[in-house]
């Protein structure tokens, strides 16, 4: 049997205050199997009574070497791994990866594919926020809302199943467009959701927004100032709850987001309650975007016809020898983007998700790096938790909306 390597106390004592060394404060391990850490996050908490003196997040328990694995795969194979990073936002991850590959190859995406990408990305944002809302309230002891939010999330997952055959790991967005066009039932399914959801959203708000217990537990808790939020690279709803009106969809539009009208919800108090308000309003804005995209959904192809980077259409393979050869070469060798690097950012439900790809001209990416929003957001946790109560730590961690697959990759 193996023996774990010893680590001496001197190596780690800079993480805690001097009082901890004298035994005046208590060091407490929260996680990695604590239910409120949403996965495998370990927090080393230094406590003075019930007050949090310091928090040291310890991550990496879910590190699966996705970046290393992607380097060994071809461009179209590597995309499958992006689904697995942020498992609540697979469509957004696919989108960021595909945008980066499209930047490298210069592929242009037909307007219909862009609009469908937007619809799916916004549906994914709603479903991700629903998971957050349910589990965050569950952390604070409100168990009933969890059942309602997961009921509505199921409708969205059914739509994903309808278009891609998979509920979660869709890999539906591909470099140059989509896997294939949406089925005819898609329009009615999304419209049914659009009609139902505003009503349900009002029900959630009736349960939570003015709930005195929820307000007591979240107002003034886990405050992050505007300057700190910007300096520490915090993005997404957390940044907007701290008073910065920044949204990647507006500031660096991609996939045709500049055509749609929507607002950026901003709150200024920077606490857990503000993050809740921002996320609820974001769901409303997502509905607006989906409705606009669906009403103006253009006809036409859903994949680029650039044959250098796209496989031939199915119909041609049976009648054209060249297409058959091309099909075979494409799916065995893959395609080779020119040398260079690309960096594409999207607004994921948690913040700025960016993919950096470096190509050396071979069919495999030389280096893929993913700038995940949860990684930077979690980094700011000590700032928010210091000085608070240990019970508030649960609310604060929940409000970050971390996905550990997104943090550790």
């Amino acid at each position: 049997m193996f023996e774990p390597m010893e680590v001496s106390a001197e190596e780690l004592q800079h993480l805690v205050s001097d009082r901890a060394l004298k035994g005046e404060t208590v060091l407490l391990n929260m996680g990695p199997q604590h239910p409120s850490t949403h996965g495998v996050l370990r927090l080393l908490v230094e406590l003075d009574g019930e007050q949090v003196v310091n928090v040291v997040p310890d991550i990496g328990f879910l590190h699966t070497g996705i970046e290393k694995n992607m380097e060994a795969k071809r461009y179209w194979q590597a995309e499958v791994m992006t689904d697995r990073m942020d498992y609540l936002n697979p469509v957004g991850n696919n989108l960021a990866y595909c945008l980066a590959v499209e930047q490298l190859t210069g592929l242009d995406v037909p307007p219909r594919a862009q609009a469908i990408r937007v619809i799916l990305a916004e549906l994914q944002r709603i479903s991700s926020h629903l998971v957050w809302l349910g589990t965050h309230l569950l952390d604070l002891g409100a168990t009933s809302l969890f059942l309602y939010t997961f009921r509505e999330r199921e409708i969205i997952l059914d739509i994903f199943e309808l278009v891609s055959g998979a509920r979660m790991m869709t890999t539906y967005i591909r470099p140059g467009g989509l896997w294939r066009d949406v089925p005819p039932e898609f329009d009615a399914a999304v419209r049914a959701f659009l009609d139902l959801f505003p009503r349900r959203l009002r029900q959630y708000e009736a349960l939570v927004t003015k709930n005195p217990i929820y307000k007591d537990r979240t107002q003034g808790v886990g405050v992050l100032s505007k300057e700190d939020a910007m300096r520490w690279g915090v993005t997404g709803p957390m940044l907007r709850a701290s008073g910065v009106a920044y949204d990647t969809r507006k500031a660096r539009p991609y996939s045709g987001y500049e055509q749609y009208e929507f607002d950026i919800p901003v709150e200024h108090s920077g606490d857990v309650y503000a993050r809740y308000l921002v996320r609820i309003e974001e769901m409303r804005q997502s509905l607006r975007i989906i409705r606009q995209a669906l009403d103006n959904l253009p006809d036409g192809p859903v994949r680029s016809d650039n044959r250098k980077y796209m496989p031939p259409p199915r119909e041609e393979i049976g009648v054209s020898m060249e297409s058959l050869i091309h099909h075979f070469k494409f799916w065995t060798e893959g395609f080779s983007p020119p040398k260079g690097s690309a960096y594409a950012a999207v607004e994921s439900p948690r913040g700025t998700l960016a993919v950096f790809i470096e190509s050396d001209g071979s069919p495999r990416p030389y280096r893929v790096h993913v700038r995940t929003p949860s990684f930077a957001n979690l980094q700011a946790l000590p700032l928010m938790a210091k000085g608070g109560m240990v019970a508030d730590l649960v609310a604060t961690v929940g409000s970050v909306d971390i996905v550990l697959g997104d943090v550790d990759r």
Partner: protein
Amino acid sequence: MSAEHVQAAAEALAERLQGEVSEDNGQVVVRLPKARLLDAARLLRDAFGFQVAEDITAVDYWQRREPRFDVVYHFFSYDHAALLRLRVAVDDGEAMPSITAVFPGADWYEREVYDMFGIPFDGHPDLRRILMPYDWEGHPLRKDYPLGYEEPQFTFNFDEIQAKKVQGRR
């Protein structure tokens, strides 16, 4: 995105800090000597309003180029919606200057680069491994680190597989 702002920042870096400006798929890239990185970070923050080091990573050019690594920085300005990429070359065994004093958000990113590539950062407040276990040997994202696999250990063959492993690596 305000392209003029990025261009102005890149020209200032070229003029004052020996940067080489180029373009890569529509993105302005500035290559800087290692010694100038801290000055560049301060200049970007104070004179050009870049508030955050959005992303820091590295690329390993093992057996392809000397010096071996490129550390790639992406700086972002919320006011100008401007993104600038910096590339700094560094050789194996050399340390990079840490920019955490200028951009505190670089903290975990530098730790990740240290963990994955073994590039130390001078002046970092807490340089430890972040994703890999603390007693891990090697730096996984280096190109000479094999993409290996681990045999699943069961009770009947635990010792047999354990004996084949490199000491100290779990």
